């Protein structure tokens, strides 16, 4: 069954009682939480995720709960617990959806070392995947979401996972995370999109998540082959410009954006080398999302 087979109340009950065993990409999360905000986040943004309440083995046991203590009376805090440990500082109650997403991302990036994990978005069309590594604020998530709005398959918005065995990209189609102005940009660009709760005043400003398309979630066990490494750069009023980049530059930039390159050692070196060998690299400066998308459609046609 999938999340949307439940009613929102049933979903909340399961989360609060036994926990929800939820499939996310190649992983199974066992999420417990009695917070209504977490329940509605999962109900709205993971409707297509497979649930298996009889599943005996889960990868990530997770709990999102009110932090106990007197401070909670003044300003309620929420903490993320993984396997009995609390890996980061608690956030305010209103930010619990963001905490859930960041928490799951942390579970993956801190443990799943069978993949080389990049801080990058990845989308696919015509069997050609584009990896977009980029520092926060370069418009990577906005462009990624816009491409997905136009029918590209979402592989991942935040964590690109490269198998160290064959350099293929393993999808992790979690909700796409948008910040500040890009929230409105996407709401206008993609009116049918489903947005979750807007978490204000986080470290990154306002954060909201967008539901990934059903099709992308259904195909999450289908690996994709990287064809392009793209460095997007949003610049107001810029004329669209696509510049070819050297492979060495692409390699080093991917290393800079990797979570576990040094940890994986030669595994990472080999996986990344063959990925860069098989891909072209470009820098794309754009101001208009439609122009950028037409350009990228051409590249994968």
């Amino acid at each position, binding site marked *: 069954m999938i999340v949307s087979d439940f009613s929102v109340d049933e979903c909340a009950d399961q989360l609060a009682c036994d926990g929800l065993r939820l499939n996310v990409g190649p992983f199974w999360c066992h999420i417990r939480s009695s917070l209504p905000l977490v329940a509605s986040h999962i109900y709205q943004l993971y409707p297509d995720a497979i649930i298996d309440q009889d599943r*005996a083995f889960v990868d990530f046991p997770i709990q999102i709960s009110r932090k106990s203590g007197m401070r909670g009376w003044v300003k309620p805090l929420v903490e993320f617990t993984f396997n009995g440990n609390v890996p980061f500082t608690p956030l305010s109650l209103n930010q619990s959806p963001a905490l859930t997403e960041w928490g799951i991302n942390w579970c993956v990036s801190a443990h799943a070392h069978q993949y080389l994990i990049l801080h990058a978005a990845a989308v696919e069309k015509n069997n050609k995947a584009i990896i977009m590594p980029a520092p926060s604020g370069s418009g990577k998530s906005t462009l990624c979401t816009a491409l997905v709005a136009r029918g590209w398959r979402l592989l991942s918005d935040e964590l690109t996972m490269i198998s160290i065995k064959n350099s293929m990209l393993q999808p992790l189609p979690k909700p796409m995370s948008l910040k500040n102005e890009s929230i409105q940009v996407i709401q206008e660009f993609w009116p049918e999109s489903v947005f979750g709760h807007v978490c204000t005043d986080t470290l990154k400003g306002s954060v909201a998540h967008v539901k990934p398309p059903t099709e992308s979630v259904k195909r999450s066990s289908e690996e994709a082959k990287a064809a392009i490494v793209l460095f997007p750069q949003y610049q107001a009023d810029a004329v669209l410009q696509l510049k070819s980049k050297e492979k060495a530059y692409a390699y080093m930039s991917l290393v800079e954006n990797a979570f576990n390159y040094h940890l*994986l050692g030669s595994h990472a070196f080999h996986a990344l080398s063959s990925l860069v060998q098989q891909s072209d690299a470009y820098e794309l400066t754009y101001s208009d999302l439609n122009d950028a998308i037409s350009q990228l459609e051409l590249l994968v046609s």
Partner: protein
Amino acid sequence: MTANKFKVLCGLLTGDCAAKDVSLAQWNLVVQQGRSTHVLSMLYYRLKQREQLLDVPKVVMWHLEAASIVSEKYLRDTRSEIKRFLPVFASLGVKFTLLKGAAYVISDKPCAKGRTFSDIDLLVPKENIDRLEAALQWHGWASSNQSAYDQRYYRDWMHEIPPLVHIKRHTVIDIHHTILPLTASLKPVASNLFAGLQEVEDGVWTLSDIDMLLHSATHLFMDTEFDHAFRDLLDFDGLIRDVLTREFDWQALLVRAREMDLIQPLYYALRYSRRMFNTPIPLDIVTSCEQEWAPMLTAGFMDVLFNRVIMPPHNSARLAGTALARKLLFIRGHYLRMPFGLLIRHLFHKAFISPNEKESSAA
């Protein structure tokens, strides 16, 4: 021990339990407990050695493989640090001697394959420490930022100097000159340790097998913190099993423990390793330790405390009173480390003076 909650993890680690006999639900617990006790990578190598990796269900396997990749990184980093240390030690004529995790791993103990550790622990004769510290500074190692009080605490009273941190690589080394604080009630003689050192590879030394066992027990049962107690006890179990593959004289262990004033920690290590991991330790050895040293409070009471802290720090095995047991053992550890008067003085300083010092230095 209250053990059945993590019997499977222990059994898989020691070989009492075969991977093919473990259900998925049990694997679920094994992976969670193994992660919180930092033994997943050790489990990977032990199953590999017993040719049981094929019996591990596919959904479980990545957890073990990923953990083994992390442990490869530890080994790589340690090796490259050792390469940098060796010329410095050679130029001073000081033996490069590893302790604890790094020692087990570098001396290729089968039980330590996949063992991870956060710091590299070294043993150096006290009279060489100043020269060594000065030399290491030229290679980028600096004392971690400590207050004047902390410097004194370490240098006058402890068995190690404040940790040295490399300014670029941020690696941490702990340099010890003996294995218990100078102020501790038990008084092992450091010079005894140096006499028995063994060279495990070119220029790299460790304690003798027996001293390694005693140190493993001492480090675990005389300490104030028990975050890694399960893994430390697993080390002890592995070291025992390792010496038993060769000719081993149990009496020699007791003689050495007496000589080093370490019967007490040895007693606890033997007792709990046997109960937790079924370590093949003859009962009469435990009994003769017990006759020479029995706890002031009853063994039953100490069991209540140690059972709680040796358990994996994981919800599945949490017993009521775990937090209290940790606190009591924290106090016990301090009491064993320092005479009462000095302890009061130390705790007073930590509670009332150190916080103010931090504030004034921050201002």
